[in-house]
């Protein structure tokens, strides 16, 4: 957003099919975004090259020409190394850099220390692979960098994203069909929530709460005076709870007691509040801390509305089911709360509310429900009902006329900074967390169906670490960090390098992974460093108190692995 002035993926999924090079950086799209990966597979079958940049050699890497297994938290360094190689090899897109960017000199200076050797030493990636990626990316006609939470769930997640943007600016891989920066969103409506103003600084349509003109538009519409004050990010709220400024909390559709880093601390904070309201489709663990629980409808099948996906496509969500019992639509709950607060909001349909949004958000102005239904969704910006769609963003940067080119895109010079949770003699191993194909977030939804390919809760260890710890697959170990400790059975994972552990975050009832993770937040996005925890692992005879969902596929895996061993 900082670079281009709009917080959204630059490209359409369809463009991936025409790319010559796809870099999956901190993204295991094959498992986490399987249908996006279908588009990538089309490109692969047409001959596109694929690079996987990931501490783990995960499923996506199986489709890659090369895997760059970097040490957790060295993304900024690796990007500098690639940038420097592109510069020194004379592969910079000079015309694009000159016409469309600012800050190039500073960027060159920041790259300069990162020779292939230095970068290789810092990141753990062989120098020839760094060089190869740099050359292939710079020389490709159309190249995309796709990323996910492997980039953003760090204390410097915004810097990581900035580093990837730098590479696109350096090579002109943005603002053209097939070239772009593709953040694959983890949840159905992350993009839409942000677009609608569920960001502390924003009003709907990326309009600034601090901008008097923007505020005035909404004040006229709603006939109110709005405080010109930014809200708090989740991490700022956590801090405010610690300080005692924040005493009441209204949580809608989130399970922070299980999904947030350092879960024990989150639970304690909620206990200390004066009043907690939780609105959810389930009585989640977070709801057990609530004074009031508001049962709501399942948005995706029991109510009307829109979701916006990772290619900025606004799509209609339709009601297929009558909700159970007293569960109410989110819109209706809001209206009833407003009523209790003495505000007589009218009863409105989802479409009426959408039309209200269209009136104040130029990017959505042309998106009537009729067109959204007819076209299978529309990508923003779509200001005019008769206008063209926008499959990719920032084409303006290629305009010859400086006026049309508009604001230039600045290079950034982020600092390389290792994970906050340092490795030392006591906690020598690096734990990273993520999602598996068959599971989702805290498992509240995905736990409902009986998946034949669900591993259940476990800790993945490299064969080398298993040998060093003298543990076999299925044996229990105790994993401890500076904040907490959990028990989990071991699963052998040859895709991990020695010293790196992986745990899925989807079974918090059995193994509360976030008892281990650190609440080290990115100062801009507020996202915590889920991907980098310092831990130790000990063999144990302790017997856990739970059995459900534990590594059910273990026996089968052993048989499969046996001949190879």
């Amino acid at each position, binding site marked *: 957003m900082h670079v281009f002035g709009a917080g959204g993926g630059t490209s359409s999924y369809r463009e991936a099919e025409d790319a010559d090079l796809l870099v999956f950086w901190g993204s295991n799209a094959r498992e986490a975004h399987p249908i996006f990966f279908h588009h990538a597979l089309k490109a692969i079958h047409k001959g596109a090259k694929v690079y996987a940049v990931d501490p783990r050699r995960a499923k996506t890497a199986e489709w890659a020409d090369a895997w760059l297994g970097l040490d957790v938290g060295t993304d900024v360094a690796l990007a500098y190394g690639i940038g420097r190689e592109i510069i020194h090899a004379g592969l910079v897109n000079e015309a694009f850099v000159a016409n469309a960017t600012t800050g190039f000199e500073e960027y060159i200076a920041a790259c300069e220390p990162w020779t292939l050797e230095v970068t290789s030493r810092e990141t753990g990636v062989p120098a020839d692979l760094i060089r190869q990626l740099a050359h292939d990316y710079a020389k490709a006609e159309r190249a995309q960098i796709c990323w996910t939470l492997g980039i953003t769930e760090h204390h410097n997640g915004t810097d990581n994203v900035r580093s990837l943007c730098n590479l696109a600016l350096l090579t002109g891989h943005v603002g053209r069909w097939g070239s772009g920066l593709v953040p694959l969103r983890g949840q*159905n409506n992350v993009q839409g929530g942000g677009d609608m103003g569920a960001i502390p600084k924003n009003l709907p349509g990326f309009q600034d709460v601090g901008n008097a003109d923007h505020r005035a538009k909404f004040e006229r519409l709603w006939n109110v005076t709005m405080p010109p004050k930014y809200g708090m990010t989740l991490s700022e709220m956590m801090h405010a709870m610690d300080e005692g400024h924040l005493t009441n909390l209204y949580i809608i559709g989130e399970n922070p007691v299980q999904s947030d880093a350092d879960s024990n601390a989150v639970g304690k904070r909620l206990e200390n509040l004066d009043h907690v309201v939780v609105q959810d489709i389930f009585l989640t663990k977070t709801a057990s801390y609530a004074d009031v629980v508001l049962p709501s409808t399942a948005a995706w099948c029991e109510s009307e509305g829109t979701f916006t996906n990772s290619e900025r496509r606004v799509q209609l969500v*339709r009601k297929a089911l009558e909700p159970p*019992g007293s569960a109410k639509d989110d819109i209706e709950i809001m209206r009833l709360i407003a009523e209790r607060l003495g505000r007589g909001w009218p009863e409105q349909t989802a479409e009426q509310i959408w039309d209200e949004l269209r009136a104040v958000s130029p990017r959505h102005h042309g998106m009537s429900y009729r067109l959204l239904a007819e076209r299978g969704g529309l990508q923003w910006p779509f200001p005019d009902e008769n206008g063209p769609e926008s499959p990719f963003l920032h084409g303006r940067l290629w305009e010859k006329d400086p006026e049309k080119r508009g604001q230039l895109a600045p290079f950034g010079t982020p600092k390389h900074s290792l994970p906050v949770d340092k490795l030392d003699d006591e906690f020598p191993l690096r734990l990273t967390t993520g999602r598996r194909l068959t599971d989702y977030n805290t498992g509240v939804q995905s736990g409902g169906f009986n998946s034949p390919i669900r591993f259940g809760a476990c800790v993945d260890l490299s064969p080398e670490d298993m040998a060093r710890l003298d543990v076999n697959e299925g044996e229990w170990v105790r994993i401890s960090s500076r904040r907490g400790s959990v028990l989990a059975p071991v699963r052998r994972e040859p895709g991990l390098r020695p010293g790196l552990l992986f745990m899925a975050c989807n079974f918090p009832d059995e193994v509360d992974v976030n008892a281990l993770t650190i609440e080290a937040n990115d100062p801009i996005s507020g996202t915590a460093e889920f991907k980098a925890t310092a831990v130790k692992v000990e063999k144990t005879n302790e017997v856990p108190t739970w059995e459900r969902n534990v590594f059910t596929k273990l026996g089968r895996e052993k048989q499969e692995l046996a001949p190879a061993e």
Partner: protein
Amino acid sequence: MNAPYPVTPVQQVTIKIDGEDVSVPEGSTILTACNAAGKDTPTLCYGDTLTPKNACRVCMVELKGSRVLVPSCSRKVSPGMEVMTDTERVRHSRRLVLELLGSSVDLSTTPRIPEWMQRYDADPDRYGERSGESLTRDIHEPGEHHAGNGYVAATMSQPDKIDNDLYVRDYSKCILCYKCVDACGTQWQNSFAIQIAGRGFDSQISTEYAAELPDSACVFCGNCVEVCPTGALSFKSEYDMRAAGTWDESQQTETTTVCTYCGVGCNLNLHVQDNKIVKVTSPHDHSIGHGNLCIKGRFGFVHVHSRSKEGSDS
């Protein structure tokens, strides 16, 4: 300014179908032209999201100047073509295909079969009594083929394969159209969990070494079930309801909405009966998924029904 995104100008091509002119975009198939002309053409192995396999031969039409009948689902139109869709040759060919399939495969859940059988005077029973269930169809002996005795019609009949809670394989209903294989392979899913095993009438869709699905490369996306034309592959929810006699499509609604499991935004068609989701399909003409989903989108709906009447957790 913007690099051009691939838009190729499309010209119209005019051909004659049963004596009448029909215009379709160049690159279209004869089947598309037949549909445009209102000619109802039976198809089984044709899939709107798949490359034509030419396996079932039920859509054959007569093409002037061609020695043999041509498959309308794959033959592209060219200017001046003259196509006949209802000559005795075409009718005879379609009748034969329907009779051979009908005598060997259970077509009871294949849409429109009774209508086509009647239209083409097909009589699958004339091949005699059908052979019973075989327990050895998954066992292949190289070089061995046991010819029938000539008194019973050889069939695909075999026990249903129920080895997981998500979908069932009833290969008694399989016409070997390859659609599932292609959906699982390079055309969409690229999981390569299934292929044809065996030769000739012993051919069978199978996992590697006929392993049960949970032990195979299957990732349970259900994209094979999505394209199966005969019900040989069916969602467990549908299979169970059919077995219980409660499956009633006349009582079902179909609503298109958006999946909640990640940020890609795949479209779901929720099939609902008695306020319960009974199966999930995906619109074939949507640019995101083209009818494909992953395991969570396809099967992850169960949680909405696990809430008690009070709207809270059970």
